[in-house]
């Protein structure tokens, strides 16, 4: 997934103001990837959303000193749940792709034992998609969006000379 350049980021600006800007941009990247993430045929969408979550988690860790602890932890908890659900949904895709590729390479695309393993991964993928559906529900994504907005807002306030809220 191509990352977005973060405009208005100055190396000499206060760390907390940079935190606000980076979290806003990385959060936008994440929510851009959510439409279609439950489509079982669009395997790259799951991968892209997972990468976007990882980038956002990394940004929150980088700027942790600028962020109110309770809000930071609450946001990270939601992101961890999202990352786990996306990972469980992504892993069978990787396995199926690898296995089918290997089977073709060794000229065993019709092998029954390989097909049985691919089928097992397909079943895992469908079950993981159901779990992912609960994590990426409209309500939960809206809550996450709100919490991330507040996190960025708190960093901005802190960078502008306010106090850091707990």
């Amino acid at each position, binding site marked *: 997934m191509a990352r977005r350049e973060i405009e208005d*980021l100055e190396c000499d600006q206060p760390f907390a103001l940079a935190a606000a800007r980076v979290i806003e941009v990385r959060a936008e990247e994440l929510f851009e990837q959510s439409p279609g993430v439950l489509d079982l045929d669009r395997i790259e969408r799951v991968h892209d959303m997972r990468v976007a979550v990882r980038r956002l988690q990394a940004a929150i860790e980088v700027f942790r000193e*600028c962020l109110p602890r309770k809000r930071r932890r609450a946001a990270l908890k939601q992101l961890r749940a999202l990352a786990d659900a996306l990972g469980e949904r992504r892993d069978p895709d990787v396995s199926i792709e690898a296995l089918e590729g290997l089977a073709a390479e060794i000229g065993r695309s019709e092998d029954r034992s390989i097909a049985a393993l691919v089928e097992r991964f397909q079943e895992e993928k469908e079950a993981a998609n159901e779990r992912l559906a609960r994590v990426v529900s409209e309500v939960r994504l809206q809550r996450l969006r709100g919490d991330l907005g507040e996190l960025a807002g708190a960093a901005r306030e802190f960078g502008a000379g306010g106090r850091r809220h707990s």
Partner: protein
Amino acid sequence: MKAVKVKGLDPATSLRANATRIVQTRLEEMLSFAAAASAPGAGAAQHDMRIAAKRLRYLLEITEDCFGPEARRARRAARELQSVLGDIHDCDVMAPLVAEQISNHAGEDAGTGLELVAAHIEGRRARLFVQFRELWQEQGAARVWAELRRVLRA
């Protein structure tokens, strides 16, 4: 793998000042895994190094403009490491799943294809490890990490 805590950060000072400390910590963290990861079967150390390379890469994506071309080059190098170590990790995840399926088909002719797959995964992992070691040596010879260290100290 839990990240090493970065000391001495100050939200009131600049992005550059804080980023310097964080990049230094994440760089040394990644380098600390290199010796152990350079043994062929060291899956755990290779996995840790991949996570550390990923942390460094995502950090540099945010902060590289504060450090110039050496940081951009380091970010690309971290991505290359992450990629090859990720492929090794995929083999390490897949191998036991295939082995389990083979044991489920023990005594059946139907397991032959999976036995070939298992051998193929083993061979692929060995080739990827050679790629990783060559990449690491190339990056060392090109002074990618030494140059990043130098600009961080400047």
